[in-house]
C-alpha cells in the first residue's frame, strides 16, 4: 500500500504547531516539546520533501521556515528588547537571553529541517537555515539596538572606573556575544567607541590630576590606571583590544601633558638627580653604611618604582637622558655599590630581598657603559659565590634573570654559567665524598677536602702562586685527581690555592682554637708543627714562595689583629731577617677565629680585561660587517660598528681604526688600490 501523501497545508500546520511550542518554551520555562516530538517533526519534514512531485514541498518548507524565524524576530524578540532599553543591566541580560534562545531555536529548526539542509539547500545553493537565522538576528535585532547596547556597556565600564562594582561575568558574556556576531562588529561597533570613551575619560582625569597632584602622585596614579585597564582586558574585554587601550592611556597621561610634567619635575625637584649622583660618588667608597646611605637606598628604590615599574614613563626620553648623564662614568662604582648592598643587609633597617633586587636592577639600568658594569658585577658575584657570602643562590639567580631580561646580549651569560658551575660542583663533591668513603687504599686522605670546580674562561681569572704543600694536602689532591679522572678524561686541573679555605686546629696554651685561614696561610702554619721557631729564610726555602707573596702571608699571621705567630723583631713590616715563632699564648674569646687575607681589589685589572674584551668585540664586529658587505668605506664601517656595539659600549673611531689595522696585518682586510678610503674583505 502506498504511503499516504501529506498535503502541504496539513503538513505545515503540524510543523508550525511544533515550532510554536518551541517558541513558547522560551517564554515559559515549562518544557513543551519532547525529543520524540522533534523526531516526529523531522519525519514529517522528511516525508514532505521526499514525496514525488508535485508533492515535493522542499522549497515551500524552506520558505516557511525562514518566514517563521523572521516573524519571531520582529514580533517577539525585538519588542522584548525594546522594553528593557531603560536599564543597562536589564537590557544586557535580555540581550543575552534572547541571543541564547535564538541560538537554540536555530539549532532546533536545523534539526527538524535537517533533510532540507542536506539536500535541497545544497542543490539550490541557498544559505543554510543557520545562516539565515543568524542573518535575521543580526539585521532585525542587533542592528536596531546595538547603539543602545554599546552605550550600556560603556556606561558600566565608566561606573567601574569610578569605583563601582559591576557584573563582570555579564560584561564578559556580552562582549563574547559581539565576537560571535562577528569580530568586525566587535571592532567597529564596540572597540572604536570604547577607545574614544577611554581617551576622553582619562583626558579629564589627567588634566585635573596634573594640576592638583605632585609629580610623584601623578605618576603613580597614571600607573594604577594603566594597570586597571589591563585588568579590564583580562576580565571581560577581548585580548586584541589591549595594545590599543594601553596606547590610549599612555598617550593621555604622558604625551598630552609632556610639558607640564617636565615643568613640574624641575619645579618640585623631587627627582633631582644631581644631588643623588653626588651622594653616590661620595658614599660608595665609605666602608660603613650610614644613615645618609640608607636615605640613598630608599631613594633608589623609589626611582626604581618610577622608572622601571611605571610603564607609562619607562624609556621616556625626558627622564632617560637626565638619569644617564647624572651617573655617567660611575659604572664601576655602581657595581661596587650593588655588591655592598647585597652583602650587607644592615642593622636597624633590614632590606628585603625584593628591595635589593630593585636597587641592583635600577643601577644596572642606568649604567652607561654596560660592559664595565657587567664586568665589575661579575667579579663581585664570583667572590660572593666562592667565599659563601651575600645572599642565597636563589636570590642571586633572581637578580640575574631580571638583569638578563633588561639587557640584551651576553650580559649575564658568564654569570649564569658560574652559578651552574657551583651546582655541578656540589654534585661532584657528593660523588667525591662517596669515592673517598669507599677508598680501599691504605693511605686514605686524612683530612676532609671540598673542591669547587670552576670552568676556566667563565670565572674571572685569579692569581695564585705555587707553594710546596705538606704531605697531607698533597695526598688529598692526588686522591681528588684520581677521582676526577674517573669522571672526565683530558681535563687539566689548576689549583687556585689563593681562594681556598682551611680549618686548622691550633693547640694553644689556654684553649684550642679553630683557625679559619686560606690554604696558603695554613701551609705556613703547618710548618710550625715540626719546629716552634723558623726564620724567614727557612720558611721561604721550605715553601718555595716568592718574596712579595710570602711577606703578605706572614704579615697576616703575625702583624694583624690575630697574632698566631710572634715576629722577631716586632716591627710593622716583614723583612728577610725576621724570625717567626709559634705563639702558644694566643687566645681569643671565641673558639673559632677567622684570619683575614685582604683580597686585592685590582680595579685596574678589571678595566684591562674590559678593554681586551672590547678589542675582541670590535674585531669580530668589523669582520662580520666586512664579510657581508665585501667592500666598505671607512665612515660607513665606523658607523655600522658603532650601531652594532651600541648596546654595551660606544667605540671611538680611534679604537676601530686600530682594529682595522690589526685586521689588515692579519690579512683579513686590505685597502682598495684605487681608493685608500675603502677596505676590502679578503676571503
Amino acid at each position, binding site marked *: 500500500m502506498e504511503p499516504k501523501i501529506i498535503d502541504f497545508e496539513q503538513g505545515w500546520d503540524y510543523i508550525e504547531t511544533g515550532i510554536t511550542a518551541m517558541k513558547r518554551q522560551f517564554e515559559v520555562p515549562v518544557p513543551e516539546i519532547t525529543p520524540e516530538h522533534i523526531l516526529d517533526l523531522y519525519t514529517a519534514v522528511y516525508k514532505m520533501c521526499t514525496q514525488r512531485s508535485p508533492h515535493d514541498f522542499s522549497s515551500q518548507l524552506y520558505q516557511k521556515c525562514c518566514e517563521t524565524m523572521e516573524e519571531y524576530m520582529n514580533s517577539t524578540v525585538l519588542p522584548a528588547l525594546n522594553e528593557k532599553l531603560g536599564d543597562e543591566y536589564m537590557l544586557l541580560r535580555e540581550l543575552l537571553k534572547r541571543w541564547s534562545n535564538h541560538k537554540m531555536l536555530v539549532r532546533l529548526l536545523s534539526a527538524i529541517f535537517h533533510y532540507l539542509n542536506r539536500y535541497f539547500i545544497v542543490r539550490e545553493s541557498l544559505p543554510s537555515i543557520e545562516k539565515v537565522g543568524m542573518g535575521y538576528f543580526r539585521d532585525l535585532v542587533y542592528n536596531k539596538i546595538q547603539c543602545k547596547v554599546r552605550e550600556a556597556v560603556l556606561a558600566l565600564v565608566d561606573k567601574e572606573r569610578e569605583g563601582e562594582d559591576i557584573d563582570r561575568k555579564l560584561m564578559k558574556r556580552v562582549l563574547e556575544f559581539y565576537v560571535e556576531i562577528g569580530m568586525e562588529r566587535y571592532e567597529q561597533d564596540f572597540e572604536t567607541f570604547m577607545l574614544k570613551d577611554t581617551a576622553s575619560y582619562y583626558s579629564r582625569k589627567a588634566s585635573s590630576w596634573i594640576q592638583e597632584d605632585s609629580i610623584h602622585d601623578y605618576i603613580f596614579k597614571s600607573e594604577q590606571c594603566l594597570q586597571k585597564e589591563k585588568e579590564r582586558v583580562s576580565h571581560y574585554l577581548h585580548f586584541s583590544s589591549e595594545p590599543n587601550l594601553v596606547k590610549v592611556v599612555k598617550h593621555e597621561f604622558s604625551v598630552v601633558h609632556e610639558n607640564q610634567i617636565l615643568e613640574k619635575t624641575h619645579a618640585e625637584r623631587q627627582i633631582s638627580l644631581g644631588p643623588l649622583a653626588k651622594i653616590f660618588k661620595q658614599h660608595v667608597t665609605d666602608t660603613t653604611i650610614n644613615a645618609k646611605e640608607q636615605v640613598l637606598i630608599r631613594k633608589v628604590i623609589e626611582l626604581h618604582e618610577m622608572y622601571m615599574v611605571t610603564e607609562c614613563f619607562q624609556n621616556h626620553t625626558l627622564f632617560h637622558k637626565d638619569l644617564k648623564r647624572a651617573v655617567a662614568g660611575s659604572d664601576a662604582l655602581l657595581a661596587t655599590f650593588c655588591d655592598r648592598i647585597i652583602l650587607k643587609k644592615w642593622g636597624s633597617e633590614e632590606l628585603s630581598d625584593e628591595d635589593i633586587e630593585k636597587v641592583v636592577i635600577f643601577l644596572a639600568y642606568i649604567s652607561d657603559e654596560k660592559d664595565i658594569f657587567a664586568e665589575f658585577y661579575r667579579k663581585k658575584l664570583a667572590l660572593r659565590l666562592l667565599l659563601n657570602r651575600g645572599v642565597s643562590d636563589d636570590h642571586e639567580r633572581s637578580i640575574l634573570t631580571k638583569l638578563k631580561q633588561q639587557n640584551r646580549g651576553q650580559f649575564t651569560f658568564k654569570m649564569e654559567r658560574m652559578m651552574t658551575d657551583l651546582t655541578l660542583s656540589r654534585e661532584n663533591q657528593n660523588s667525591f665524598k662517596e669515592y673517598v668513603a669507599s677508598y680501599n687504599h691504605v693511605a686514605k686522605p686524612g683530612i676532609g677536602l671540598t673542591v669547587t670546580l670552576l670552568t676556566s674562561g667563565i670565572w674571572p681569572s685569579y692569581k695564585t702562586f705555587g707553594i710546596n704543600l705538606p704531605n697531607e694536602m698533597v695526598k688529598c689532591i692526588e686522591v681528588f685527581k684520581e677521582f676526577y679522572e674517573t669522571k672526565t678524561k683530558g681535563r687539566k686541573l689548576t689549583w687556585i690555592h689563593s681562594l681556598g679555605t682551611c680549618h686548622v686546629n691550633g693547640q694553644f696554651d689556654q684553649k684550642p682554637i679553630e683557625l679559619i685561614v686560606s690554604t696558603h696561610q695554613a701551609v705556613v702554619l703547618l710548618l710550625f708543627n715540626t719546629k716552634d721557631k723558623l726564620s724567614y729564610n727557612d720558611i721561604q726555602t721550605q715553601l718555595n714562595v716568592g718574596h712579595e707573596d710570602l711577606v703578605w702571608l706572614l704579615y697576616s699571621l703575625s702583624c694583624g689583629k690575630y697574632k698566631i705567630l710572634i715576629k722577631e723583631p716586632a716591627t710593622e713590616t716583614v723583612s728577610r731577617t725576621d724570625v717567626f715563632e709559634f705563639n702558644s699564648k694566643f687566645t681569643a674569646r671565641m673558639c673559632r677565629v677567622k684570619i683575614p687575607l685582604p683580597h686585592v681589589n685590582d680595579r685596574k685589572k678589571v678595566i684591562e680585561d674590559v678593554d681586551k674584551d672590547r678589542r675582541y668585540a670590535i674585531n669580530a664586529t668589523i669582520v662580520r660587517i666586512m664579510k657581508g658587505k665585501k667592500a666598505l668605506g*671607512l665612515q660607513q664601517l665606523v658607523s655600522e660598528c658603532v650601531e652594532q656595539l651600541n648596546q654595551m659600549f660606544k667605540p671611538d673611531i680611534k679604537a676601530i681604526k686600530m682594529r682595522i*689595522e690589526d685586521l689588515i*696585518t692579519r690579512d683579513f682586510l686590505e685597502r682598495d688600490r684605487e681608493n685608500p678610503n675603502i677596505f676590502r674583505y679578503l676571503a
Partner: protein
Amino acid sequence: MRRSAASKKKSDSITTSTTDLFRSASSKATTKEMDRIDHLFNQYANISSNLIDPEGIEELCSNLEVSHTDIRILMLAWKMKAEKQGYFTQEEWRRGLKALRADTINKLKKALPELEKEVRRQSNFADFYAYAFRYCLTEEKQKSIDIETICQLLDIVMGSTFRAQVDYFVEYLKIQNDYKVINMDQWMGFYRFCNEISFPEMTEYNPELAWPLVLDSFVEWISEKEA
C-alpha cells in the same frame, strides 16, 4: 733577365753568411757581455755559497764609490729584483746588470745616475718604495719592521725628496710608545701622506678619513708641538 743560379747562390751565401756573422757577432757579444757580467759576479761572490753576501756588497759599494746606505744600492737591488736583503744571487746580478747594460765596474758606476732617474719617475717610485719595505723583511713570516730600521729606511728612501716630513716623522716615531713596529699599510700611508698633504701646514689632512692611525697621531703630535 734571368740571373744565373750560381750567382744568386753566391749572393745568397753572402747574405746568409753576413746574417750569420752578424748573429754570431751579436750573440758572441751577448755571450761575451754575459761572461763579463759573470766574471764581475765572481769577483764579489762568496765561493762556497755562490752569492754576493754583505761583505761582497760592501766591497762593491766601495768600488762604486757609494756608501752602502746610499739609496742607489737599494735602487740597484730593485732593478735586480733582489729578494733577500744583503745578498745578490747570480741570476739577480745578471738580470740587473744586463738591464743596465753594464758589464764592468765603470759601466755600472756610470749607469747609476740613469738608474736613479728611472726609479724617481712617478710611475716607478711607488713600486720602488714598496719594494724597499719588502726588502727589509728578513724573517719568513715577518710582516712589520722595527721602528729603528724604519727610521733608517725612511731616511734613505725619502730623505732627499721629503726631508722635512721624514725628519719630523722619524722624531715622532722615536719618542712615541704606541708602535713598536710599522707594517706595509702604514709604510705606504706615509708615502701617500708626503705626496698628498702639504707640509707643514697639513690643512688637507682629515683624521676621519682612512689614514693609518699612526699618521693621525703624528699629525696630532705636530699640532700640539706647534701650539
